């Protein structure tokens, strides 16, 4: 019957002045044909403003958007190493089961997160999120999740009653404190998608990173470009990224679309171009080099004899490399180290030992290339700060 309808529509439309049969293209549609492509990647970069000051902004480091201003779209050579997050915007939906796992009520195999079997629906999650007493009859079969994998069983704490021991192979239940049938929490799967800088695999904060299948290429009323989707949001741990290094995105081979195609990145995020499944090398950026902010412009005069020199870096330093800082007094090297260097993570504080710096003396402090960030990336060039103390 449906074929008859379509035939009638086609024949009659062709013989009259009306347009052809239904065309349902949408400006909010995705691009499910072919391999899943990285269309854009958004993250923060450092840049110098018109007065030379250092600012940061969120840009399209890969790909672009028709509504984006020129300043917001370009290859990035100074990706922020601290506090950055990466929004990897795809041209189609990926299978979420290989990107995230759901939170369980208790530890099942070393942690309290479980993969969701492929093909599971929210109804399967709800069946595994019911009350503990109902769980054995509802959370079973191929779509059961949060299965205990400990030989001794898994202990679940239930309010107002003794702990329940769930034997190995049975579900401990999806964590659903508000009992709405949905998981309270999800967590990004380790190494599903990563950032590789040189040979360094950047640690990813699995709790903060996530996959969201929502969204499309239309910019919503609120949220801006960071509401485009579907998107993988990657958040490095507090270590951040290594400095001054070329980086790429790395996708696990099992991160695929619904046709089991691996992810690729077309040149410039142009999804009309071809790309080879599994090849995401086009997504490349460089992180900002290590720099230090002293709060003053060198050289400076009249420096207090007891005032410390604060070197505010952009990322955490390798403590062992801090002794790569040198200092000269009136052009002569110290014979005795008269300052104390306090490493406060990303900030070094150089404090003169009592009784302080000599008066009316020129000091030169050099951060040598032996100073490294916590990933071992060195300062790209020596940083020299000079100041002359007051009377």
């Amino acid at each position, binding site marked *: 019957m449906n074929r008859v309808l379509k035939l009638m529509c086609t024949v*009659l439309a062709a013989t009259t002045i009306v347009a052809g049969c239904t065309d349902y293209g949408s400006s909010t549609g995705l691009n499910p044909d072919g391999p899943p492509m990285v269309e854009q990647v958004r993250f923060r970069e450092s840049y110098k403003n018109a007065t030379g000051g250092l600012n940061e902004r969120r840009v399209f480091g890969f790909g672009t958007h028709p509504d984006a201003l020129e300043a917001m779209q370009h290859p990035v050579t100074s990706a922020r190493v601290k506090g950055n997050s990466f929004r990897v915007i795809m041209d189609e939906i990926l299978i979420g089961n290989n990107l995230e796992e759901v939170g369980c009520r208790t530890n099942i195999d070393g942690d309290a997160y479980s993969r969701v079997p492929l093909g599971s629906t929210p109804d399967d999650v709800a069946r595994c999120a019911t009350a503990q007493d109902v769980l054995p009859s509802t959370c079973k079969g191929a779509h059961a999740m949060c299965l205990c994998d400990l030989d001794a069983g898994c202990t679940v704490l239930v309010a107002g009653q003794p702990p329940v021991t769930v034997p190995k192979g049975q579900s401990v239940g999806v964590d659903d*404190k508000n009992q709405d049938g949905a998981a*309270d929490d999800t967590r990004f799967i380790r190494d599903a998608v990563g950032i590789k800088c040189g040979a360094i695999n950047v640690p990813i904060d699995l709790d903060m990173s996530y996959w969201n299948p929502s969204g499309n290429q239309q910019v919503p009323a609120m949220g801006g470009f960071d509401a485009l989707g579907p998107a993988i949001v990657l958040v490095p741990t507090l270590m951040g990224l290594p400095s001054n290094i070329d980086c790429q995105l790395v996708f696990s081979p099992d991160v695929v679309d619904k046709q089991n195609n691996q992810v690729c990145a077309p040149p410039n995020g142009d999804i009309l171009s071809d790309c080879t499944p599994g090849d995401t090398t086009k997504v490349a950026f460089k992180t900002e080099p290590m720099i230090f902010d002293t709060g003053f412009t060198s050289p400076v005069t009249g420096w207090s004899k007891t005032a410390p020199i604060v070197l505010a870096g952009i990322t955490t330093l390798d403590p062992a490399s801090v002794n790569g800082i040198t200092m000269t007094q009136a052009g002569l090297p110290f014979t005795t180290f008269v300052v104390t260097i306090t490493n406060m993570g990303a900030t070094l504080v150089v404090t003169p030992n009592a009784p302080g710096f000599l008066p009316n003396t020129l000091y030169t402090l050099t951060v040598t290339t032996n100073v490294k960030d916590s990933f071992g990336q060195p300062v790209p060039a020596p940083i020299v700060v000079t100041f002359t103390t007051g009377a």
Partner: protein
Amino acid sequence: MSTKSIILAATLGSTLLGITVLSPTTAHAQSQTTGAVQGSVTDSKTNEKLPGVTVIATSPSLAQAQTAITDENGQYKITDLPPGDYLITFYYADITLERGGINVGIGKSTPVFQKLNQAQAGGEVVKITDTAPTIDPTSTTQGITIDKNYIKNIPVPGRTFESTLGAAAGSQNDGVGVSFSGSSSLENQYYVDGVNTTGLTFGTVGSPVINDFIEEIEVITGGYNAEVGRATGGVVNVVTKSGSNEFKGSVFAYFSPGALTAAAERTPRNATSIDATANLAYTGDFGFELGGPIIKDRLWFFVGLAPQFGKTDVTRITKRQTDCRKLQGNGTLSGCDAKLMSAGGNADGTADVDPKTGFFITDDLDKETRSNTSRSLNVLTKINFAATPENQGQVTFQALPGQGEAPGIFGPATSGSKGSSLVTDLSGKWTSKFNDNKTEVEAVIGWHREHVTSDPYDPSQADSPLQVLYGGSLGYLGPGFGAETQTTVNGCRDGDANSSDPYPYLADNCPMRNTPYVIGGPGSINDDTEQRTAAKLSITQRLKAAGSHEIRAGVDVENNVSDKARLYSGGRFIQNYINQSVILVDRWVTLLGRKGSPAAMNNTDPRFNDRCSTPDPDPNSMGANVEFVCDYTSGVLGSPGTRVTGNTINWSAYLRDSWQIQPNLTLNAGVRYEEQRLRFADFLQDKTDALTGEQLGKNAMSLRGMIAPRIGLLYDWTKEGRSKIYAHWGRFYESIPMDINDRSFGGEVNFRQQFAPSQCGAADPRIGGPSGAARNGENCPSDMAAGSEQLIGASGTLVAPDIKPQYLDEIIAGFEYEILDDLKIGVAYKNRRLGRVIEDVSTDGASTYIIANPGEWSSSAETKLMNRIASTDNAIEKARLENQLKLFQGIRVFDKPRRDYNSLEFTLTRRFSKKLYVQGSYTYSKTEGNYPGLVSYDNGQIDPNISSQYDLIELLANRVGPLPQDRPHYIKLDGYYTFDLKKAGNITVGTRLRALSGVPINALAAHYLYGGNESFLLPRGQIGRTDFEHSLALRLIYARQLSKGMQLEFFVDLNNIYNRQGSRGVDDNYAPQVKLSAPNSSSGTTQNANPVSGGTYSDLIWVKTIDRDGNESGTPIGKNPNFRNTTSRYAPLAANFGMRLNF
């Protein structure tokens, strides 16, 4: 002259006396209230055409006999015949032949072709009773004619004409009305006695005429010619009864007692502690209708009077959640033991859930009944006047006053409302024929008026604002507001193990999580009047030229006026989100302009001293607010700003020719031109828009150039009027209802303030409980800055320059064939496609709204605006225009709205003969697209042409799919059979069978700006359909002749005979707007979600929430425990009975 009567059955008609019924060969389509008889007269032996035969039509429906004389081709046509049964008499030489049993329907040409045997001449009157073919081979019109016998014998589900409309193939009840051929019901036009009675504001039924006053209803579902317009749905013509030369009428009474109605099944709402189930208490009416002569053959009257009354009992069942069961090894739940599990019981502090249904298990606490009542009076009077047979007139007056009361259900009864209404129709019609009836002129004038008022249910609440409390608990709302019974209050009391709380480990026994509790006054106050004054004139000319033509031209004008109240009781409307610590206060305001604007600077009116601010729409403002000079509209009717006017002028003209090329080949061609001018409210005309800076004139939107061609071709391959194969193409334009005048062109501005509870006085234990911190929204101040403030609608409404009207194209092809006498079958393919839509869009993220054609904007308008910008020197004006240009260009990014309806209709009609009538159809159809029409079924919004469906670009995602009115399979079968019990009377059994596919189920979520059910998480229909539904109704009528001309009938109806209360709708809301932190928590977080474009159900596991400000987080969305649960059901088994005394 002697008379010899010969009664012939239709099946013998072709042979006896040489008289043969042949096919019709002349043109179609009469006025909206009358039909015609047409045909030709030939010699039965020679087939010679017989000119000069006098043909006279007489009927009890007709004031004076109507006459025609056959032309040189032996053809004749008698027009302007009211619907009814006719006797056609042919006079030729000394032959007199009377043919009875000819039924004439509205808008139809009944073919009556005669062959006369001249050898039979002899002065005898030959009488035959026969029927004419039921197929009108000159018309492509689709639909059904419902006569008074259908209404009388079929158990239709209501007492007014709308209840019969569902008999038409391709029609369905869409919850707002009856929709036809994939359109929404608000796209229909309704005519009563030729006058447009369509509701002005929304396009609903304006004058619900009671069935007993109706002569006939013509339901047109497509294929209509140029005479008909302003509809992209169906057209319904109701013709009321008229008087005749005999006094005729009836006394009737109908009654539906609640005692004979099965109890409605409960439709529980999870995590809500009040279930409301409506059950009929009674409904009924009684009255009379009488028609007869005032001056015989000249002046007739008809009068009908019928009071109606009804009462519906709403049973409120209060309930509490339990915490005393656990699942046993055998999969069943244990018995109830409320002791802690550690103490050997089953309590664990979480509510018990039925593992099979997913519903919380509850104890019923108490039952209370609150009743809705209604009363109305149907009055109809009509005068028909026949100056001569060629000059006739009619005046009709109808009035329908009504009253009703509806107490509050989810809260105190006092939060309900009372209302009254008065519908008035007055129409006049005059028809004159000239030039041997070849020329006909018809003039109709009409006035339709609706007046609606609402008042508080409890007068003491007249000055109180309506306050909606979200996320509360009956544990404190019950005792707090004194609206719950003591049993409920006691049962919901929360306490510790030493208290009377049977489930002390549950934090909240009686949550009101999914249904808010409502307190205060009635909210919006109505005192609305709308009226339409209409006039139309048509002229018809029949002529010969390469066949025969019937050319008709006409013009009509409508002046539509609305005058409405705009106020809230207490001056404001409050939404109090107890579990989110947010209170929203809405007020209607009148804006004078921005602070510093000339209008504000020159203001001397002290009223304009209230606080109004809103985020600056300028994208460079970085979120700053702008201040307006404004006045809060009072809660007192008649105060300044509480009334808004609207005006729309419609006019149209048409020309059509029904050209009969060959006796069995007809070409219908016509063109219709329409215009519609929608005006600004009086107080806005010739002013400057407060925000857009646009200079407003008189017309807000002028839709011109609505050229609607129609063409149809028909061929009768049997040449006997027993078949037709046909095709039709037509374009139809929408007539925009006046809601847009009120909302978009009436200066509607709402000031919303969002308060933190701490700004609203001391904690109110009635609202938050003794230990809660919730405040009463009534105490929120108006003179201080709230947490956020927004003027909704203050951006003004722009209309895209060169906006084009909304239209629909239609293709129909099919055939009908009379396979047996009185039995015809038909197959029709129908394609209806929206070509263009008018909707409001926002291209700047909800700052400014433009009424536009989504997806298209005229390039010539763009060029004009660019030229205007180039020639503007004033920098401010230039910037304003440049911003407008950008806004208008953004319209093109939006998807074009689409709605495609494709159907195959199989129909079977057996007209009433041999005691049997059958009307059946099977429709296979698909209604797909991204725009259902003027009803937003998904969120319940009824704002034609300014719905939220196209407001924001992100709301368009996933809208494509099977639309809410998509029901692939629909079977309808109506019929009745009369058993003749001889002297004991007769019994008629009527049935009405319906079987239909369910409707698509969606997965919806809230949008951070627009609220619930606005975001299509998944493509339309992704979740499946509601169940296939079916029902059977039965009517039994016993009729007994009391005396000549007097008959008494008793009847009983059994509706939904096997009491299947199937699911009519389900909860499509996947992610509730508030995600609670715990099942019975008093705190929660806002959760919104953007659509998963092209996603599947599995993807919803991974969707993340968006907060109130549009910021995404990594938190997965929560799920609505009621998702896919039934929200409404079909009516239960019900019996009603009545009597009718016909005389």
